[in-house]
């Protein structure tokens, strides 16, 4: 069992998304250990991209701030390599595909592995286009996390499950990051469908903002991802952001484990 899957072993996992380099990579390097200490079980480190078409306004603005301070994929990996020893939890790298293409898929997988990255999620790379990255990741023991959406039909869920290692990320609604979470019924249905075809843990994200929402989602899922709400709070005030992380973490961790 790899580090990422282990994070789900004893309790519901709380996954925190932040945009690397927002507002600078030095800030991110200081934040990562603090976020782990505040109760995150996995940290999803987002690589800023100029054209984040899957992201809502909060993460778009975060990416703009990060790019304005000169953040690059190489820079993010360098920062992680230097600070990895201080971060006690697994790191999931979230990125769009183009920065990886710019570096080269093999060079990226080597650098990510050397930086202590545990898993990679490429939001605009469905399994059909991912053979090269899957192979390069497998060769370096990097887990591959894929999204399953409420629109994904059962046959595709099986295919995505086969390609996934680490965990499966269920998108709570059709929409972009930071939108409003609708009812929980699609989440319950989606998670149940995934469980039929995979033994991997299932985390749910997109639109989870409050401890109450996180607690409700944690009843169904093995893990809960919160991004925009934390990114927004951290941008306003780091102390307030970390206290939001703490209250979200305790809400998720209170949910009864299987």
């Amino acid at each position, binding site marked *: 069992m790899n580090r990422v899957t282990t994070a789900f072993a004893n309790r519901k996992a709380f996954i925190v998304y932040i945009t690397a380099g927002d507002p600078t990579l030095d800030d991110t390097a200081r934040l990562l250990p603090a976020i782990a200490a505040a109760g995150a079980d996995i940290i999803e480190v987002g690589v800023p991209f100029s054209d984040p*078409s899957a992201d809502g306004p909060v993460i778009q603005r975060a990416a703009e701030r990060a790019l304005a301070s000169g953040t690059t*994929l190489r820079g993010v990996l360098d920062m992680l390599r230097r600070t990895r020893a201080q971060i006690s939890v697994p790191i999931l790298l979230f990125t769009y595909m183009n920065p990886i293409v710019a570096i080269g898929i093999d060079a990226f997988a080597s650098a990510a592995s050397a930086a202590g990255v545990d898993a990679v999620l490429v939001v605009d790379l469905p399994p059909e286009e991912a053979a090269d990255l899957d192979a390069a990741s497998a060769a370096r023991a990097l887990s591959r996390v894929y999204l399953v959406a409420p629109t994904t039909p059962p046959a595709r869920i099986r295919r995505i499950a086969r390609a996934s290692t680490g965990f499966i990320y269920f998108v709570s609604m059709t929409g972009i990051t930071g939108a409003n979470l609708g009812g929980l019924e699609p989440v319950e249905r989606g998670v149940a469908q995934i469980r039929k075809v995979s033994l991997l843990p299932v985390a749910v994200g997109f639109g989870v903002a409050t401890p109450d929402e996180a607690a409700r989602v944690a009843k169904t899922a093995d893990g809960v991802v919160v991004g925009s709400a934390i990114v927004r709070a951290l941008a306003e005030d780091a102390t307030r952001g970390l206290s939001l992380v703490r209250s979200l973490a305790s809400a998720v961790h209170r949910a009864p484990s299987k």
Partner: protein
Amino acid sequence: MNASRFGDFGGRYVAETLIPALEELERAYADSAKDRGFQTELTRLLRTYVGRPTPLTFAANLSRRAGFRVYLKREDLAHTGAHKINNGIGQALLARRMKKRRLIAETGAGQHGVATATVAALFGFPCDVYMGSEDIARQAPNVSRMKLLGARVIPVEAGTRTLKDALNEALRDWVTNVQGTYYLIGSVAGPHPYPTIVRDFQSVIGRETRAQIRRAAGRLPDVVVACVGGGSNAAGIFKPFEREGRVRLVGVEAAGDGISTGRHAATLAEGRVGVFHGMRSVVLQDADGQIRETHSISAGLDYPGVGPEHAFWKESGRVTYISATDNEALAAFHDLTRLEGIVPALESAHALAALPKLSRALGHRLTRKSVVVVNVSGRGDKDLATVLAREAKP
């Protein structure tokens, strides 16, 4: 070769939520291609509503200046004033067939937005058009037309506030409202199957041109020239000539202030392979894979990507790609207006600006007997304010 790819280019690089919608579109498109009723309706609308076939005009005065015979394919005379309507009609029929309830689109120059707003009015769809606020400022007449047609024009303030950002915002809308909304992409770009669908609907330009030039000149042309932003008018006129090895195909990109200044939109000249807007293609980007800001006087060419089939044609050598600067396009805009009484869109003016460069680009001298077809992809009414404002500057 995989149907979703052109050589190594194309594919489907989008968030998972959209994949089933793209698969549904691919199936619906394949069914429509085999459905005689659908094809009859498309042909009827192109003839009776769009006004096809558009003429092929022999440009006598321009030919004397150029030193070879120049024919103009007159997409400026299509309904709404540009070739974009060919694809708008085709995809609106698809949307109706798929029982979608709403259209969305992105637009740069506004011609695709106008075409989409037009077919939305015709077929009774509500319609939202995303447009960068920079483009809204420089293409005001088209914004008014879209509103008159009943579309909502939604300004996009993100990024560079141009076409690429409008496309990002349209993708965000689509991923949110994917059930029930049809995304009507205007160029041969984006995830599979869009580059194929848009090229097929635009290929009517090339099919007509083949028949018309045979009648007018007694043979196929030596050269076909078209401007390339995303590349839909070029793909449409090139495709039916693709297998005619003797017909040279020339695509003209926007060199803005000049390629050496870095302020341009000549993607195939300066870009590298990347993944952008759902496709693997050539992309203008920095060393770290961030998409670069582009510049062109022509909003319709101001785009850092290019359709994957053009990337393939460049790699295979089938099409020769060159570029024209803002100033060259402006000069060609005035030349066609004064010499032939035709006001071209600034996009099309880039294709016309290539005429003096053709011999050099092709590596052999064109003679008085050479036959060259230029695709006049749209008319220039929308650009008058841009041209006048630029020329009023001291």
